[in-house]
């Protein structure tokens, strides 16, 4: 038997590569229209996503201005190995940015999940379904407004001269005015509120659909046995949707190094005084690009990409172990 198998293999091998070519040509001939449809999207993805991957060589080079053409510069400048990586590894701003990003992500994960879950449970329990739907749509609205609009709103509340909180709350109550944009200690709390208003409503949609999808028979049986509403939520609803919760949490962990650029860049209005509390890894990379430290920025970007990919793969692998259906891939 094994002999037959090996002969089969050796017989097939030489023609295998050749077959791929034949197959592609055959497919293009028979289904050329599919390729025509794919073409515009493919070109876009190739240029905007795959060509930049070649650009990561920049992370291993010392970029210098020699010629006006960027690519001649890139070609001519010298290889420096991992020097660019050591540069930002020794930068205390980078570690501050790492700490800020991971810290906020963990905070948002815990609070966001809790608040979204509470919204879903409450909306599901309200007797008047029309009102419930109205509340829920209103909670979703902020998600569709831009971060720039949010930065205006936050400024209207916290602004130094005319801000609502200083002028209409703190001063009339006899407190001192607070320079919000200069005090880092308030920012975790401010960013938490802004982020909650923008995204908690949307986060609740998944939980709500999971709750609505539960089999009503469970609840009927529980009622027959005299379970109160609270007991039903604790003993039936939460355990049944715990899978969804855990999986969403793990999938979020995969993006632990990415933070919403708009939130951290626009809401603090780039105030230099509160950078220690608001600069994330993405913003660190962006500022390096703005100050033309291309190689260092590219190295930091590559570091983030690689770590990001590893964490996504790892978390997806974990989710697959729990529930194959829920894994991304």
């Amino acid at each position: 038997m094994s002999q037959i198998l090996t002969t089969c293999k050796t017989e097939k091998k030489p023609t295998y590569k050749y077959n791929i070519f034949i197959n592609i040509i055959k497919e293009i001939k028979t289904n050329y229209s599919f390729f025509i449809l794919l073409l515009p999207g493919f070109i876009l993805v190739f240029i905007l996503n795959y060509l930049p991957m070649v650009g990561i060589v920049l992370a291993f080079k010392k970029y210098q201005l020699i010629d006006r053409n960027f690519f001649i510069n890139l070609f001519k400048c010298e290889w420096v190995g991992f020097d660019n990586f050591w540069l930002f590894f020794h930068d205390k701003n980078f570690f501050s940015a790492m700490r800020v990003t991971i810290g906020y992500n963990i905070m948002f994960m815990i609070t966001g999940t809790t608040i979204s879950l509470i919204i879903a449970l409450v909306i599901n329990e309200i007797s008047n379904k029309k009102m419930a739907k109205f509340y829920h749509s209103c909670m979703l609205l902020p998600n569709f407004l831009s971060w720039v609009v949010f930065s205006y709103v936050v400024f209207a509340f916290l602004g130094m001269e005319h801000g609502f909180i200083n002028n209409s709350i703190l001063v009339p109550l006899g407190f001192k005015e607070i320079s919000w944009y200069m005090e880092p200690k308030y920012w975790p709390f401010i960013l938490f509120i802004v982020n909650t208003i923008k995204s908690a409503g949307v986060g609740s949609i998944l939980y709500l659909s999971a709750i609505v999808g539960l089999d009503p028979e469970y609840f009927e049986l529980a009622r027959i046995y005299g379970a109160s509403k609270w007991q039903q939520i604790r003993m039936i609803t939460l355990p049944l949707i715990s899978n969804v919760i855990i999986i969403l949490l793990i999938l979020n962990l995969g993006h632990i190094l990415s933070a919403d650029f708009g939130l951290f860049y626009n809401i603090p209005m780039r105030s230099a005084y509160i950078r220690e509390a608001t600069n994330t890894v993405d913003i660190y990379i962006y500022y390096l690009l703005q100050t033309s430290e291309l190689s260092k920025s590219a190295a930091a970007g590559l570091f983030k990409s690689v770590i990001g990919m590893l964490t996504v793969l790892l978390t997806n692998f974990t989710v697959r172990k729990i529930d194959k259906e829920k894994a991304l891939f």
Partner: protein
Amino acid sequence: MKKLSSTDNISRGWNIILNIASAAYTLICLLPFLLVVIISLTDEKAIAQYGYSYLPKNLSFAAYEALFKSTNSILRVYGVSIFVTVVGTVLSVIIMAMYAYPISRSNFRYRNQFTFIIFFTTLFGGGLVPWYIICTQVLRLKNTVWALIVPYLFNTFYVIVMKTFFKSTIHESIIESAKLDGASEIRIFRTIVLPLSLPVLASVGLFMSIIYWNDWWLSTILQTDNAWVNLQYAMYRVLVSATYLSQLGGIGQGLTQSELAKMPTETVRMAMCVFAMGPIVLAYPFFQRYFVKGLTIGAIKG
């Protein structure tokens, strides 16, 4: 049956409490935006005296008057935003639907390979700097209007959403019978698949238009002069320095120097913010259904 389990069980008192709690959270979500609207209608002098307030002493439409007087630049800024949103949305929906259709067809041999090509981009990317270099050195996007459109044209997530929709709602048998009648694949796509997929096209289109309308990031990174300033980017600049308004090719074009000095900058910028929120808030009640649908289709994996 479902009705029984979810409604009959909650006591009147609890229902009232939950209603109040939901209403309170709804207000927390909406009231902050109301403050911006009120500020834009407040008299500039009242702001100087009492600061921003929900209950202004004097109302005034000076900000809107100033905006409408300086029509040249504000119309241009608004026009850029509208142009980018319309062109970007139409192009992106067409391109993404064109990509999603072949990879949804089971008789296309390389559907998995082409799905992987776009899926991989969500896993790994070159990072900001290489992307910036491609945009500026290869595509020459810097300071053109295409800088605000091209980078967002293809979105893997929505392509997968469309693919899932095509696969689940358009029956293979319809396509087969059209093929027997001699229709080409492109014709099938145009005359059968697209009309049948209007719901998903509408949802994705809405989300793309929101993305384009709300974008400030592409301008921040790819626009260095004031030629193609869109509304969000103008707002972003104005918030930091109110004088940016006059830099914008003279928002007070046709106004004298003294009139320019009198322009109520505090309220004008809040009026701009109202203009930016306006279209979304006004359209939201009508399209809300599609928004929610779009968000839930997104939950289904491809």
